[in-house]
């Protein structure tokens, strides 16, 4: 059994980030985009925890991760409010239809 090291975490984190970014870019559904954002935040969390465990040997990263989780919750609340507002304005939650900025 191979040792699980820092590099594994970082790779997983990078994969998570890429998946999140892909979701944010390609999902039509605003809720899907929100999920992508959660993935990106969690990839960052994974990095924080991994680096605090393997490099710094403190709990600073874990504290930061906790903060990010809280922040993500808040963000989800705000973002869902935006999605609701969007649905009220456009009749759907398709990000491609919300192009008012263009005009």
């Amino acid at each position, binding site marked *: 059994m191979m040792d699980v090291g820092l590099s594994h975490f970082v790779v997983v984190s990078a994969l998570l980030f890429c998946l999140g970014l892909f979701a*944010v*870019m*390609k999902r039509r559904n605003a809720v899907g*985009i929100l999920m992508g954002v959660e993935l990106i935040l969690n990839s960052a969390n994974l990095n924080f925890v991994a680096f605090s465990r393997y490099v710094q040997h403190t709990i600073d990263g874990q504290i930061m991760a906790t903060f990010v989780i809280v922040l993500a919750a808040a963000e989800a609340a705000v973002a869902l409010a935006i999605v609701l507002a969007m649905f009220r304005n456009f009749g759907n939650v398709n*990000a*491609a239809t*919300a*192009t008012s900025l*263009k*005009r």
Partner: protein
Amino acid sequence: MNLAMSENAIITCALAILVLPLASYALTFFFGKKLPRKGDFIGVTFVGAAWLLAIRIFLQFWQQSDPSFRVEAGFTWVDLGGFSIDAGILVDGMTSVMLMVVTTVSFFVHLYSTGYMHGDRRYERFFAFLGFFTFSMIGIVLSNNLFFLYVFWELVGLASYLLIGFFFHKHSAANANKKAFLTNRVGDWGFWLGILTFFTATGTLNYFELFAHVHAGTIQGTLLTFAGLGLFMGCLGKSAQMPLHIWLPDAMEGPTPVSALIHAATMVAAGVYMVARLFPLFGPTALLVVCYVGGITAFVAATIALVKTDFKRVLAFSTLSQLGYMVMSLGAGDSVNAMFHLTTHAMFKGLLFLTAGSVIHAVHSQEITDMGGLRKKMPITFLTYMVGTLALAGVPGLSGFYSKDGILGSTLAMGMVNGHYLPFILGIVAALLTPFYMFRLTFRAFFGKPADQERYDHAHESPWTMTVPLIGLAILAIFVSGFNTADKGWFSKFAAPYDVAAIAAQYPIESAGHHLVVAEHAGESHAEAAHAEMVDPHGGEHAVAEGHGEEHGGHHDIHHTAHVRAMMMSIAMVILGILGAWWVYFLHRIDPSKLQARLPGVYRVLQGQYFFDELYAATVYRFTLWWSHLCSAFDRIVVDGIVNGTGYLTRMVSFVSGSFDRYVVDGAVNGVAAVLQGAGEGFRRVQTGRIQTYLVYVAASVLILILIYRVL
């Protein structure tokens, strides 16, 4: 009674006389419409006050009995470093007499106008102008230097213009005032040249300093003659001497009180006053010209007066003739009798014009062919008119006789000394014509049968405001001479020939050399000789005519003989003239119309006033028209050509410049805009409004940045 006034008091009085009519002018001009009686009482009382002050000054000089006594006061008005112009007033005997003449006639005319102009639409304006005129005329009299003399000279010209054209709605009046003004401009042009010549040569404008300069020879010879003739041109214009007399008969278009005040008594006498005042500035040659001009005017005007039928025009030509006498007297070197005749003439001619006004007021016509038999209807007018006529005719005992006699005597004396008899002959013939035409007027207007019964029935004596001035002036016309000639009677206290040597002693000329051209080329050696010559600048003949030939014993006899002869002749002429008129116009022994038919040429010339107007129409006016046509052609062809050419050139240049603008500058601007628009069109696609597209850009950019970071 002690009448002594300090010099300050005299100056203050004189200033008050100057300012009172001005105040009357200002008040009536600005507030006349709002005042009761349209403010005529202001004019009458203010000028009346000025009159009383003038009497006060007159009495002072009467007591002084010294013609050379004078008071001067002034201040520097303009100081330009190199030269300065003073404003000042001068009061001496001559001034006090002139003040009396001007204020007396002006007061009577103001009073008379309240009756004559009653009910006129611009009644208050008339009084304002009268006040303005009186102010300007007094300014001429009081001025002590040529500059202010000129200023007031122009102001009386303006007043004359305004008053001749008072009935400006009449075409003839509007033309007459233009004619008067323009004719005066010709004279004033020469006057101004004369003033400038004196100023350039001597550097001063003060009368007495100028006399001292002339005495010292700073200005002499031909230049002095021409400068003097320049000044005399002013007199030609203002005193209506030939050939600039044409405006005065037309000036009769003005209201009659104006004719009396301005065109008979005062303003037209300003030229005579000016020459008499500046007498030492006229060289012998200039004086000879003056004498001939006066003589010819006296004669020619008298002949024209023989045939005119307009009451006022006859008087106008008579005025010309009398002014001719005064000028002739000046030319003969007798400025004292000229001033004396001016004084007496002001009284009786002012009176005659006022009676004319009274007659015109009564019959509403100026033509003597509409009158006749008026003496019964208008007794006061008739009696005062007779006083004026007899005085003008030169009947012994009335004022005109003494002054005219003095003038004829001096002119004859001049002829006996230097052989120029022509002025005297013209004068004595005019003395024959004067009573003739005056009595022609008298018999036609006041005697005989009424020519127009309707007008006759309508005629009535004028109100007291008009008859009181008539009576006042009639009394003066009788007594003003003091029953003596100028050099023996009261007038000698007020005016005497200038004692130029004494004046020169009061105004030492520091050095004649630094005063420009004239003195410089005279040089040292000539200066001595010149000085000897200039001791009596007017030569022997004038010393004689002045009648003060103490050092010339023989000349005194000539003067005396001349006076006696002239008096005899003039009395004979008066009797002949009156009898002639009586014969023709009262007894009708000769029918003037038959005479007229037998001498059609003479009649045409006289009735046409020697065709002076036609002559000027053919020469001066034609030349002016031709010249203005030429100027207009020059304007049209050359000036307009230049302007249009410049315009065309500018258009061409601007067309090229416009094309450059349109194609090059606009092209550059539009090009930039087009490029930017194209770029915008392109980049517009980038902005989709989709948030995810932007995120792709961000991610791609970050990737690129990382890549760059990595590679570099």
